[in-house]
């Protein structure tokens, strides 16, 4: 694993500067059904293809960012600060 992530603040940097934060998932409302919370808490889509992920630029700007990464090629299509 030695791909680059285009940090929107710092530019292209080695993935070793980042901490992986998992898939981007929408957090359910507090009153949502147990099944929905179960899904959110324990399951992962584990997409074979482009997936939206959290990354933290630990050895750089120390910001959380989101990246669209192809999990089969490790190509990062885009990285951006979430709204």
């Amino acid at each position, binding site marked *: *694993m*030695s*791909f*680059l992530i285009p940090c929107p603040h710092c530019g292209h940097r*080695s993935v070793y500067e980042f*901490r992986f*934060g998992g898939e981007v998932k929408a957090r*359910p409302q*507090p009153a949502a059904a*147990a099944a929905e*919370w179960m899904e*959110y*808490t*324990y399951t992962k889509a584990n997409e074979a293809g482009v997936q939206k992920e*959290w990354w*933290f630029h*630990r050895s750089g700007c120390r910001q*959380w960012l989101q990246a669209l990464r192809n999990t089969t090629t*490790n190509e990062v299509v885009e990285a951006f600060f*979430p*709204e």
Partner: protein
Amino acid sequence: MADSSDRFTFQFDGETLEARSGDTVASALYRAGRRIFTRSFKYHRPRGLLCLAGKCPNCMMNVDGTPNVRACITPVRAGMAVRHQNAYPSLDHDWLAAVQRFDGLMPVGWYYKTMTHEWSWHAAEPYIRKVAGLGIAPEPGNGSKDYEHAWMNAETAVIGGGPAGLQAALELGQGGSQIVLIDDQPELGGHLRYRKRAGDVPAAVIAQLRSMPSVEIISRAYCFGLYEGNLLGVLHANPHAGAIERLIHLRAKRVVVATGVYEVPFTFENNDLPGVMLSTGVQRLIHLHGIKPGTSAVIVANGAHADEVADDLRGAGIELVAVLAPGEVISATGSSHVTGIRTQNGEVACDLVVMCGQRVPDAGLLHQAGGKLAWSDERGAFLPVDLPANVKAAGEVTGASLTRAMSLPPKHVPFHKRSFVCFCSDVSTADLRDGISEGFDHIETLKRYTTLTMGPCQGRMCQLAGIGACAHETGRTMAETGVTTSRPPNPSVTLGALAGPRHHPIRRTPMHDAHDQSGAVWMDMGEWKRPRYYKSASCESERSCVEEEYRAVRERAGLIDVSTLGKLDVKGRDAGKLLDKVYTNRFSDLKPGRVRYSVLCDEAGIMLDDGTISRLAEDHYFITTTTGNLDFVQQWLEWWLVGTGWDVHITNVTGGRAAVNLAGPQARDVLKTLTACDLSSKAFPYMACREAEVAGAPALLLRIGFVGETGWEIHFPAEYGEYLWARLLEAGKAYDIRPFGVEAQRLLRLEKRHVIVGVDTDALSNPYEAGMAWVAKLDKPDFIGRNALSRQAEAAPQQNLVGFVMNDDAVPQDGAAILVDGALAGRVTSARYSPKNGKAVGLAWVAAKSATEGTEIQIRVNGSTARARIVPEAFYDPAGERLRM
């Protein structure tokens, strides 16, 4: 050409030998008369120089303590100490060569066939390790300072300093590209340096490249891997006098691979005898080192190179006895060195056999990069095709100028136990045939079963012959048989170089030197150094020192450095809102000047960290985290802040603040001599905080009680660290104050049953089962983990964290197993001898049905079972009165 005017000496196996400047270890040894350089991996057969290019395993030696150094590409230096490997007592007389007589007992797949019981492997392993193998690893920790790491970037990385690499570098350099050129030889020029017919070394191009500021040339460096994102692993030998090797992480926008070709041996009986060499190896000895590698030679050749090599031999004064086609050769003869070649027409005497072998593109990097290797009948080689964008091949590695030196697959394979394909681990053509007949007829399974291509040369010498033999035996074509996957590192890399220099950061608190002077015995806590306990004149053992420190806190006053606590300053209008969302306890209603404890859970309700949170002002909080979790907690808070638009700023102030905990029944008396702050319980109650000056230093005082006594955690600027530490000890002199360490603190808190998250809890622990239900405020509308916690609050617990007291003098170890009625029922998380109870006390996870007051449990201690009893309350001051005094 080695310069004969500059001579110096080095050591080989204790003997002093002469070398000339320009010599490699191998050329100096060869000139001194050495012909056997190694003993083979399995059979201890004598092996001599073969490739002279660092591509085969035949000259690996121990150089200055480093094992498995390729002697043929390592420049010799004055005073160098070179030793042989895998032979006893010497290379020339190796008793272990007797192993070869038993080769019938060691067929291919020997381990799988004979080690059918676990005991058989355990019995055999120590002997096998002594008898077989390569060099011996140096003692741990030895010499890691001799390895360096470096990072580089290039627009274009050119791998290979032969004619193609030089030309590519020149053209791209003139086009304005910033270039790093990597070459594994001491001088540029590639095969032009030793193949006189191929042309002259392009001195003008080299001079031009050296004059270009945008071109950096790194010689004696090889590229062992081409990774994702065009990251190249480069190993640079002797970058300067102080370093053995430097590992360069080279990132390039574009890579030009111009690694050329290498030559591989033919397979015939005894093809591994010293004196049987590749033609390019012979040419290197003659033209680079001025060595005459024999007196009478036989050339085994099938291609265009025979004439060229014959010229070189004649020029060196070597008599050419015969030129034979590979198919004519039955075997080489001789025992420790070649003495002749046997053919169908009889034996020819000679002391040098020159193999003009098949040329193979050195395309491993291109294969690693995602390119394919496609068989070409015309070229007699697997050629790199379908290269990814930004990776190019240039020169002979493309195979464009190759000619086939032999038919492939071969029409005839001499299947013989002494006809070696793999020189690294003694795999013969017979072994391959046996493997195939046992069903391992796919090249990848054949590789794994026989270890073909898996030795230090990583298949360079054996891959083509192995594929050829496999194709021949299975009746497939070369293309159908295919190649095994290329993986980095190739060639092999020193572990010391991968590990690199020891740059482990160490963090010291501002009071570090003061602890040292007080006799601190140190322990590591993550990167931090903390005093475990203090050795003093009055105590001899760790246990007695810890007990003295413990008594000081329980009876008088003690002082501990807690600067390693993570400290976060949280400011902003919405700070309370964020803490309410992330922590389980409630903080928006906390009054300024008050402190509250909380844990932090994930969405599954698992406790991740704990700490105190003090409200300093309406929009200002101060958080402490456990020592190891600071980064995690800060990132966790910031993660939940993303996208909320809330006005919160989180600042890590851990390094900027020192902290101590002053605790004990007389802590107040000590502290009041240094501060004007009213310390009475009325003005400054338990779980309150105040900002005040202590001995003139601006400080934040938290009245909390981790150790169970009246006490203050005092946070102040790090630059006051030593000063305030000294002032507090001085003020405490009248009360016989003692500094105490982590061990006493752990005992003190254990008597109070205070949990350490991460020690007493793990990735399955929720607050309910840990007996901390009060910390989860389920009446908050939402917080991280609330959904899971609200279910756990109602579910029947599976296990519970309980306290226990031993019935006798036994002290269990942390992690000891717990039995109830003879069945496994849990484990100890912390246990210490408690002076208060006169017995060991501890915390343990116990199955819920047994976790009731008074239950008798058994704990495994030193191989036997000791009895203990579950107690519901704290072992010391269960009502918490002493904290509030």
